[in-house]
């Protein structure tokens, strides 16, 4: 019996360590060519700080930021069921893929949630997931290294001061125009 238990434990470890489960990263890749989806990568230099004199703290905060990954699904008025299915997929990914949910707001016609990955306050990834029945949903992954809450607040402050490099958002603008 004891041996059986060992084997079971071993199998469990193997199952956990070679993770075949779908991840959010895979979801991005899989859907990047799909018509309904728009994916884009945004570099942190979208926050144009050339005109600003940065303090040491601000520099450090910016350095902790590596990139933004954006995925947007346009809701098709014809196919509500697909929207729901894709939305559920993302929701499940956020539950299974080692994310910790910080908070969520849900109401009748939409909502959003914020999740993170990382240990303690050393956050590697933020995921903001927003959905609205009429327009679709969007997932923004903020990837970085050691993004502490203080750094995040500093960046939020910088966003208000700095100019945004709009060229990087062009695919988004094009999508809006097409609509």
């Amino acid at each position, binding site marked *: *019996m004891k041996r059986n*238990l060992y084997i*079971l434990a071993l199998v469990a470890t193997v199952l956990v360590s070679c993770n075949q489960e779908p991840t959010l990263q895979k979801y991005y890749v899989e859907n990047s060519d799909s018509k309904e989806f728009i994916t884009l990568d945004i570099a942190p230099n979208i926050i144009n700080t050339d005109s600003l004199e940065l303090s040491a703290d601000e520099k450090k905060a910016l350095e902790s930021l590596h990139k933004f990954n954006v995925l947007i699904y346009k809701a098709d008025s014809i196919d509500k069921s697909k929207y729901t299915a894709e939305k559920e997929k993302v929701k499940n990914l956020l539950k299974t893929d080692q994310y*910790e*949910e*910080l*908070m*969520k*707001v*849900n*109401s*009748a016609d939409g*909502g959003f949630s*914020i999740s*993170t990955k990382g240990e*303690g*306050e050393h*956050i590697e990834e933020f995921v903001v997931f927003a959905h609205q029945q009429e327009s679709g949903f969007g997932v923004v992954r903020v990837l970085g290294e050691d993004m*502490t*809450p*203080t750094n995040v*607040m500093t960046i939020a402050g910088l966003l208000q001061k700095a100019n945004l490099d709009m060229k990087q958002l062009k695919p988004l603008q094009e999508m809006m125009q097409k609509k």
Partner: protein
Amino acid sequence: MKKLIIALFVLMPALIFAQSPFDKFDGRDGVTAVIVNKKMFQLMGEVKMDPKDKDAQQYLNLIKKLDNLRVFTTSSSKTMAEMKSTVTSYLKNNPLEELMRINDSGRNIRIYVKTGAKASQVRELLMFMEGSGKEESVLMSLTGNFDLSEISVLTDKMNLPGGMELNKAAKKS
């Protein structure tokens, strides 16, 4: 034996993610739900603020003591009734003290607390504002380990529903 192990595996998620009986209202039609988890409070508590700003420091100290905040609002009469019965059965299974009961122009507000070692130490705060007709029902549950007197800091900063009533309740005790 095998069955037991399987059962353990099946139960594991339920044991790890302690579910609140109120979570079933999340995602319902006609329900607005706001859920803030412990990690969020932890992270918020890590933000460095001006150490001279006493209000901010007080706020940060309190934030670190919070575990979970759940607020559910609904105006659908069916869900309202279900909310009420869920609260009633929850109170039966978890003995919470009634802190205050207010009847404000037909609107019933009840505030319950689960106290810790000291009488003013709160482990759980439950507020149920029963709506009728056009008024919405609001259910709020806040868990953690904080002092009742600190509630006013929270209601001031976080714009919680029923802030005024909570303030009154905190002062009374």
